[in-house]
């Protein structure tokens, strides 16, 4: 059994040497998770805006629903879509199980509630006068919506990063829906799970370092921006 320091040293070497297999896994992770974010974000923000702005029957129920979906384990999401996408499932004809598309679908389902819940509270916290001022100054509904998004951009960034953080690091749904296929659906978390089970701890730690570095720099950046904004006032 290698000591921890040696494992970390090996991991760093793997990363710096540009180990193609390792970086390929990282690329797949980013491609899948960024695609999921790209698809989910516009719809999530529109949903959040509608929940904050309009009064309609069932609105409160929907808000509660989205907040409770936050705590559904990734494996349950994975299992649900596994049953739907399996050849014997209702969507089997799409032939999507064990593809990157299936992983993207699972990750959309995972990040959507976070995006909605966090954007919704950001919209909710915004002064009602922002919308009215935009409208009375001649902005159409679309421009007014973008104005609101600009006003709450830090809340939205926080929602984006939280959602991205969840899906880039989740293993349950990616494992079930992607199948951990090398060079195709093996992403950072499923690779960590596999390398750990194989006893290749250096690889696992290397990928863990990537995840940690990523989340650390994103959080630091967000805090930096927010602080600059505070002192700017």
């Amino acid at each position: 059994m290698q000591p921890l320091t040696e494992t970390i040293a090996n991991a760093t070497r793997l990363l710096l040497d540009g180990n193609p297999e390792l970086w390929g896994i990282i690329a797949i992770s980013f491609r899948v998770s960024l695609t999921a974010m790209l698809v989910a974000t516009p719809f999530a923000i529109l949903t959040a805006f509608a929940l904050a702005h309009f009064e309609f029957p069932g609105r409160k129920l929907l808000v509660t629903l989205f907040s409770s979906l936050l705590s559904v384990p990734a494996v349950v999401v994975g299992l649900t879509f596994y049953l739907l996408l399996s050849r014997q499932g209702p969507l089997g004809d799409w032939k999507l199980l064990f593809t990157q598309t299936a992983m993207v679908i699972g990750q959309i389902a995972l990040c959507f509630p976070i995006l909605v819940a966090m954007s919704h509270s950001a919209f909710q916290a915004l002064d009602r006068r922002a919308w009215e001022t935009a409208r009375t100054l001649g902005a159409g509904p679309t421009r007014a919506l973008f104005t609101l998004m600009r006003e709450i951009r830090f809340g939205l960034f926080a929602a984006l990063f939280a959602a991205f953080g969840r899906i880039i690091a989740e293993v349950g749904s990616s494992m079930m829906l992607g199948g951990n296929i090398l060079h195709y659906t093996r992403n950072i978390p499923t690779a960590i799970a596999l390398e750990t089970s194989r006893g290749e701890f250096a690889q696992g730690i290397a990928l863990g370092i990537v995840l940690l570095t990523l989340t650390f720099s994103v959080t630091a950046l967000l805090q930096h921006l927010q602080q600059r904004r505070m002192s700017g006032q």
Partner: protein
Amino acid sequence: MTQAQFRFTGIGKAFGERRVLKAANIDLSAGCCVLLSGRNGSGKSTLLRIMAGMEKPDRGEVDFGGGPLPWRRCSHYLQQHILYLHQQPYMFDGNVRYNLGYALRRGRDKKTLIAAALHWGGLEAMANAPARSLSGGERQRLALARAWLRRPAAMLLDEPTANMDIEARITTLALLRSLKEEGYALLISSHDQHHFDDLFDVRLHLGDGRIGPARPSAQRITVVRS
């Protein structure tokens, strides 16, 4: 006597059981300043917001030159031509320039127009300051300059001098006068009646959900150009 630009008739609005407006009638005309008094909670703000197309009344009609129209057919027109100023104006998260530019459509003259508005509102010194760092009086000037850039037909101002020191109030009143002289129809709601003695042409009172002259008698008052 000139034809009113906007003639609102029979505006009614209830919040649940509470009937804030019963049958309010009011006219707006170019270059004419209406001062609307009324106790707190008498429904002044609600009426102004309805007139600016921001809220839907339960009933009422509006005539802007082509005969009375039901509400659903004219709210968009109202939004486009009548501007509402909050008692405490909302400043977008950006500098003064950004807030002024918001009132403009995309165009080549944007820089020139913003410069003119900065001058008009006496805001040149703080053009690049974050709008939210301004004092109450400065914010009101910025809000008026922003409205001025938008060039609506009428402006509805909700308590424009509330909580202001005397200096800020004098500047604000000067700007309001200049708006009136440029031909805007103004409606000012306030309970500090005497601030506007030199400004208004017509004085109306909102009470019990209806509008009457400050000396309560008739139901409808035709706004006369002074």
